[in-house]
């Protein structure tokens, strides 16, 4: 590790990701902690735990078998189903909420975890699939010789569970920070307020930002508490080094279980993918007024006409953020993987920019960057890029750390003995070996940046982003235009993955 390089990268990360948070925390005054919390706080937090726990459980129940089926069995079209299964994670959660509530009539406190769990099950599926693919084929062969397919499953499950649990923790975090879905789903029938509502409402009356920041602390703490086991489990699931004599396992034959497996996968995809996308297409084509292909074409034409420059802006900012995250992630991720006993603490610090509410991060960024010295940056489109890097670099850093930890350390030792300095080792030995992880991390940051608005909304560049136009159009019931624009956003969010699936050779590592 090059100390100056790591220090430099850490400084950049601190500046874009941590200083905005520190500036906001510094605003908490003596009275703010007392006035931010009320008799209702405990009640709201309990509901939040219900939402988070329920969502995580459903994500686990759906994602574990889904990941197993698409990664390790001879399910027809497994590769395609695996890619399709990612879609719910990439689409705005509110779209899923709207379609599910309309089609199923599900409402209230029980429906909220249903919607959020369906939206996040792909996380569990992705982690499960990755874990199962990393089981050395010889372990499974030994199990098969001992006790057939059942024995294989009994070997696989304990090895996949920690990864699935990691993803369930992430699903929990996403669920507890969402206020739009609970608000929408419980808008008919008894209202089901959650703590995220409290956080959102605090900012509505926030002349006193200190109190609003204080109000956000419980959810930040909950988020961090959920991420501690997630990071620990992620580290413990690094089973094998993929460089060396690792043997990829063979797909398991489903046999008579194949129809049930197909039915399960179809049901999940129907609820989580077909319904929301289908509804968007229906809305774009005229919706309740009657679907017409001509109307669909007109909606897309209008969406492209009005939203083209916004799409361009968003794609540019997302691409910029993804590119800038990569060197940061390479240096810091590699350092994190080699850190030894401080890795847990470092991991918690790295995740902070994502753990705080988006608006807190956005306002902190204004406080940091709206100064005479950085005026040109603040006023430009680069401000959106800087903010997106700060917010999503944690994913890239942790993904690279995970991948770097799996690298054979002898590769770097050999380079060191050959006389290669730290920079040279990083550029010529580590980076090429981590290329799949770099590409994957870049893709994740691109996707997250493309669908992000809450953190960026407060900076000037937000006006030119596509979600800005989309959310404003929703207000005025331009359903067909909104649906067409939303479909375009989903398409562009999927595009990097599609392109890679079609043309890419290297296998991607996307998960922290």
């Amino acid at each position, binding site marked *: 590790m090059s100390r100056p390089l790591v220090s430099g990268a850490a400084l950049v990360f601190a500046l874009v990701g941590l200083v905005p948070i520190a500036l906001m925390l510094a605003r908490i005054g003596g009275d703010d902690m007392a006035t931010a919390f009320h008799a209702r706080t405990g009640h709201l937090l309990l509901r939040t735990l219900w939402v988070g726990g329920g969502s995580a459980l459903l994500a686990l129940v759906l994602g574990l078998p889904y990941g197993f089926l698409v990664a390790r069995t001879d399910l027809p079209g497994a590769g395609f189903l695996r890619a399709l299964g990612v879609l719910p994670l990439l689409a705005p959660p509110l779209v899923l909420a709207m379609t599910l509530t309309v089609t199923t009539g599900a409402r209230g406190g029980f429906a909220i975890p249903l919607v959020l769990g369906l939206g996040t099950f792909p996380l569990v599926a992705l982690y499960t699939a990755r874990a199962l693919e990393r089981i050395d084929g010889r372990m499974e062969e030994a199990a098969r010789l001992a006790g057939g397919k059942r024995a294989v499953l009994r070997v696989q499950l304990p090895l996949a569970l920690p990864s699935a649990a990691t993803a369930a923790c992430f699903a929990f975090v996403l669920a507890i920070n969402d206020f739009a879905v609970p608000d929408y789903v419980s808008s008919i029938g008894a209202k089901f307020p959650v703590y995220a509502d409290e956080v959102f409402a605090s900012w509505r009356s926030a002349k006193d930002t200190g109190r609003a920041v204080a109000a956000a602390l419980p959810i930040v703490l909950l988020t961090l508490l959920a991420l501690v086991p997630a990071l620990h489990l992620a580290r413990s699931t690094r089973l094998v080094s993929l460089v*060396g004599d690792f043997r990829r396992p063979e797909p398991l034959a489903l046999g008579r279980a194949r129809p049930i497996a197909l039915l399960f996968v179809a049901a999940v995809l129907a609820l989580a993918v077909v319904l929301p996308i289908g509804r968007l297409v229906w809305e774009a084509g005229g919706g309740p007024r009657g679907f017409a292909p001509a109307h669909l074409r007109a909606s897309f034409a209008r969406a492209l006409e009005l939203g083209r420059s916004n799409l361009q802006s968003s794609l540019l900012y997302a691409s910029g953020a993804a590119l800038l995250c990569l060197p940061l992630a390479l240096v810091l991720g590699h350092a994190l993987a080699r850190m030894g006993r401080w890795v847990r603490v470092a991991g918690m610090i790295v995740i902070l920019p994502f753990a705080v509410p988006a608006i807190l991060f956005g306002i902190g960024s204004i406080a940091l960057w709206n100064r005479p010295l950085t005026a040109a940056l603040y006023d430009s489109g680069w401000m959106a890029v800087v903010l997106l890097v700060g917010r999503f670099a944690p994913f890239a850093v942790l993904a690279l750390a995970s991948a770097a930890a799996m690298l054979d350390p*002898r590769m770097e030792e*050999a*380079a060191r*003995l*050959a006389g290669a300095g730290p920079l040279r080792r990083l550029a010529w030995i580590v980076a090429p*070996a981590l290329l799949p992880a770099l590409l994957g991390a870049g893709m994740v940051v691109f996707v997250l940046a493309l669908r992000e608005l809450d953190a960026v909304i407060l900076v000037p560049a937000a006006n030119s982003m596509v979600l800005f136009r989309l959310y404003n159009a929703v207000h005025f019931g331009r359903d067909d235009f909104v649906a067409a624009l939303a479909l375009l956003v989903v398409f562009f969010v999927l595009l990097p993955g599609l392109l890679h699936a079609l043309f890419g050779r290297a296998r991607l590592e996307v998960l922290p």
Partner: protein
Amino acid sequence: MKAVELAGVTVELGGRRVLGPLDLVLEERSWTLVVGPSGSGKTTLLRAIAGLVSTTHGQIFLGERAASSGRRQLLPPEQRAIGFVFQGSGAGLWPHLGARATLEFVLACRGVRRAARRARALELLELVELRDLAERRPGELSGGEAQRLALARALAVEPRLLLLDEPLGALDMPLRAALAAALAGIHARLGPTILFVTHDPREVAGYAQRTLAMRDGRIEEAA
């Protein structure tokens, strides 16, 4: 003349002493075997000499230069002119670089000019009988070929000291003999000091001048 001297060296890892205290002198151009059961500290000894693991107590000298003293590393690994062949399949080879590219990378690190690198790399490949496989990546080489590439990589450093950690372990009998003979030829031609860790001293017994037996991190006997 001394190529390597260890004086009172210990290594602690995770609060546990895994090596030493031990004293050791290797003469220049000598070939020393290190044998012992698994966990006896053989690999740690090599890694300590290479500077890949820090000593806790004692001193290591490489020629006249102090390389480490106590916990302080006075000479970093990249300046020790040590060639190291790692244990196990893969041997720390770089999967994205072909055989020739691997050696050219090392030569670049050593400051060899671009014009001379290719020729030198091919020379080294010739030495280990891999010239025809110059463009193959480690994943495309057999076990024996990969070990020979690892050896060539170690030699590219122009080492005064060659550390080999069970380089023949993954190979079948005929290959072991062939590689041992090749190594002997290189030793005769280029004259590096060799410290060779092995489970089976018979495979190179005829070439080594001395054998050290290790147990529980200490040298039990020298022969």
